[in-house]
């Protein structure tokens, strides 16, 4: 969708529903927060089940950036912290909806990608769409995930709002599809404050039988 079209959709929707405003997250367009309780919940396209150790907020934008295999959670709002789930992203798809005509593109996922290639794809996501002007890989190492030989990527990035953020991704490719859980939060306080939850969620993750 072009920027103009988005805008028109927004204006039209505002006229109809008087609802084109920020809904909790400060984002334009429609978005929807709902409570995630402390119990097993299915995420993304519902193929993955996780159990959070405390309540979280599911953030599901209805327009713009959502794709079915990706789901976002937050504690303090997406600018401060967030956990994202990628559940079975298929070959040739990207982590975020994008226009084909955009000059800068988040690279597409390929089934035969190695962890360094997936890490590079994540880096470009932050640079192209997240406003990162500096991105540092802190570590990339093997880590079991969902019963497979997965990987763990740790990184930090300086964004153009002059804030350093830190992230951790645990992921794996199963049957040519990408599964990941990502934590991304302000480096100061918020990353450490949510890391334990993230680790518990990763440890609880399983695929639906």
């Amino acid at each position: 969708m072009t920027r103009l079209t988005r805008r028109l959709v927004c204006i039209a929707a505002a006229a109809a529903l008087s609802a084109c405003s920020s809904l909790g997250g400060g984002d334009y367009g429609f978005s929807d927060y709902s409570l995630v309780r402390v119990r097993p919940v299915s995420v993304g396209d519902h193929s993955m089940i996780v159990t959070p150790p405390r309540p979280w907020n599911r953030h599901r934008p209805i327009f713009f950036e959502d794709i079915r295999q990706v789901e976002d959670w937050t504690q303090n709002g997406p600018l401060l912290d967030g956990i994202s789930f990628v559940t079975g992203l298929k070959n040739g798809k990207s982590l975020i909806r994008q226009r084909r005509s955009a000059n800068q593109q988040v690279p597409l996922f390929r089934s035969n990608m190695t962890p360094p290639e997936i890490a590079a794809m994540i880096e470009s996501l932050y640079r192209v769409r997240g406003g990162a002007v500096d991105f540092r890989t802190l570590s990339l190492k093997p880590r079991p995930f969902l019963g497979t030989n997965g990987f763990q990527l740790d990184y930090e990035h300086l964004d153009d709002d002059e804030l350093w953020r830190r992230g951790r991704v645990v992921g794996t490719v199963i049957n040519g599809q990408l599964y990941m859980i990502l934590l991304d939060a302000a480096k100061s306080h918020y990353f450490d404050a949510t890391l334990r939850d993230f680790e518990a969620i990763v440890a609880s993750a399983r695929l639906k039988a």
Partner: protein
Amino acid sequence: MCGRCLELTRRSLLGGGAIAAAALHTGVAEARVRPQDMVPLIGPGFRPTDTDEKGLWKEMDRVEEEVAGSNLLITDPKITNYLKTLIATVGGPAAQDFRIYLAHIPDFNAMMFPTGFAVVFSGLLLRMRNEAQLAGVIAHEAGHFLRRHMIRSWRDEKRKTDIFSIASMAAGIGGAAAGAYLGDYVQLAELGTILSLFKYSREMEAEADAMGIKNMAAAGYDPMEMSNIWQQLIGEEEASARYRGKHRHKGGIFDTHPSEGSRMVDLRADAIELTVPGKKYENYRERYLATIGPIRPLLLDDQVKLNDPGASQYVIETLAQDGWNGLLRFYEGEVWRLRNRPGDEVRAEQSYAAAVAYPDAPADAWRWHGISLLKQGRTGEAKGAFARYLQMKPDAPDAAWVRQMAAS
């Protein structure tokens, strides 16, 4: 997906202000401004005397404080001192009054603020082939200050519209306008707001060109490099747009600049006019590369990872006109790898293989060479490449993964 992606979309939606401001300046191209007609309108140590300009300076001092304290700046003293020397060389009578900051933003841009401080984006350093080109851009920016364009533009803007005020600018209100001017990934609110306020008319841009090229030639730089800069930048924008099947968007620095065709012709005419027979003009390429060299991998990394294959490929090939090396071949491979279209894997493999044949191949070239060998099933050779990578970069962040691959 990433928390800020949505935020950036929101800001982009709010970007109408800058577009409105830009629209005020569309007009017909002016006749060429001749360099010999350009004299500086200020002398050394200029301070404003009019009330409105004094007010503008006071606010701008606060803005400079913000800019100087930003953690987006590259503060490597070798490079910042180099920029200071350059602006002092081509800055005319105000040479000693300028300040210059280098922002870590992967885009071609440079700007002069009303009080005589300039901000250069790191993406500019990537794109310049030699010191003369960089000096040309800086001389152009200095030309705006020497010709007092800021206050002229400001007064003109105030006359035309009330949509902006210094107070709102200083408060950062309307910072969203940055989205329209700087591109989606650059949202440095204060800079963006200010940029939207100081859009110069085409006539002013032509004046800055003429003033700049005059000062540049006087300092012994080859004035022909000034038109080469525009040729490179237009070429890059066209390559990027063509790649996506679009027409070139005249955004960013091109917004109000004179139509580029006439501009290049004018600059070439200026250069011929300014060239004094028998005088030696230099482009100081070696000195430029020696200074920028240490951060060139960073600059290439910033550009290539934006996955804008048309632009990145153009930039790399432009730089390679001065000779291919391991660094450029490696990043050529990165362009293909990130583009990831059918056949690109093979192209990337070939570039990595070519890169590691050069003595200056970066460690990462060995890593990606190893990964591509691994994917081709050439395990033994891959292990050799990984060993070389770890030897060059023993504390590599992905050493654990690479060791596992090398051992498997």
